[in-house]
């Protein structure tokens, strides 16, 4: 699983050397941002159902749709938000890459899923994040960065 620390250690191990001063600096740099990331992860975990419901409602609007489809949509958004929560904790995009994005294109193509709707949902979430009501400035920046990463992968 890719995270700030494991990335550094993989490189060090490939070279067969002990963690160097620059490796340690890299780890420390990531840990300095950890407080903001963990705040975002905590707030997201607490409000994940609400955020999902809000995004799904925004995408579906007032029209009447098949409830089963809507449930599947909210399941998927919930899943992606959970992976973003994991990315916030690890400080890298490992969880999203490995469990969300790898193979995503193939699945979407085979099942003819509307990626535009997902993008719409995550853009909505991105715009709804309110500082300081939801989380602090830095935490919001970390959260939005990962939402952007996911939106780009879906686009």
């Amino acid at each position, binding site marked *: *699983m890719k995270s700030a620390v*494991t990335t550094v250690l993989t490189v060090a*191990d490939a070279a067969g050397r*002990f963690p160097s001063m620059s490796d340690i600096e890299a780890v420390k740099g990531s840990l300095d941002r950890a407080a903001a990331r963990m705040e975002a992860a905590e707030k997201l975990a607490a409000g994940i159902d609400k955020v999902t419901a809000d995004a799904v409602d925004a995408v579906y609007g007032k029209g009447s749709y098949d409830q089963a489809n809507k449930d599947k949509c909210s399941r998927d958004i919930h899943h992606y*938000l959970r992976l973003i929560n*994991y990315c916030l904790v690890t400080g890298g995009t490992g*969880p999203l890459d490995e469990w969300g994005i790898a193979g995503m294109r193939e699945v979407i193509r085979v099942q003819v899923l509307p990626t535009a709707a997902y993008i719409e949902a995550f853009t909505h979430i991105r715009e709804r994040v309110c500082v300081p009501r939801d989380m602090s400035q830095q935490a919001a920046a970390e959260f939005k960065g990962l939402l952007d990463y996911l939106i780009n992968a879906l686009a």
Partner: protein
Amino acid sequence: MLDAFSRAVVSADSKGVPIGTEDLAALRQYVADANKRIDATLAITQNVSCIAADAVAGMVCENTGMTQPGGNCYPTRRMAACLRDGEIILRYVSYALLAGDASVLDDRCLNGLKETYLALGVPLSNAIRAVEIMKIATVAIMTETNTGRKMFEGINSGSGAQCKEIAAEAASYFDRVISALS
């Protein structure tokens, strides 16, 4: 390879839930102790050859036959292999310590180590003794309880008592090596 953070992620994913306040408390502790952890890592990296050489020398002193013809550290080529292995084990312990998780040590160092040593005819009891000495030396340097001069320069160096908990964690990784060889 996992670290303290990705370990939490893997366990949360198996339950399908996001990581909430409770799990984050332990990780916040890791972040709060980051400077001590870095110091403890530095204590190893700045004294690698000293720790490994002392351990091998200690092992040989206790079994002087090892450097005699027919012994396992004779000739110097085999003694050199022994020193090299000591450094390799120390390197993986330093990785595990920095990551806060033993998976890198398990996957990349200990998996199959005992079988390799058995196949090569390395006496396991002596290897274990060398690891034990490395453990004692490492903990002493980290906590600055070694006799003689201060052995490392770090953020908290000069107040070795601060590294006590991390030193206990480092000792647990050495114990892992010992139990893998036993």
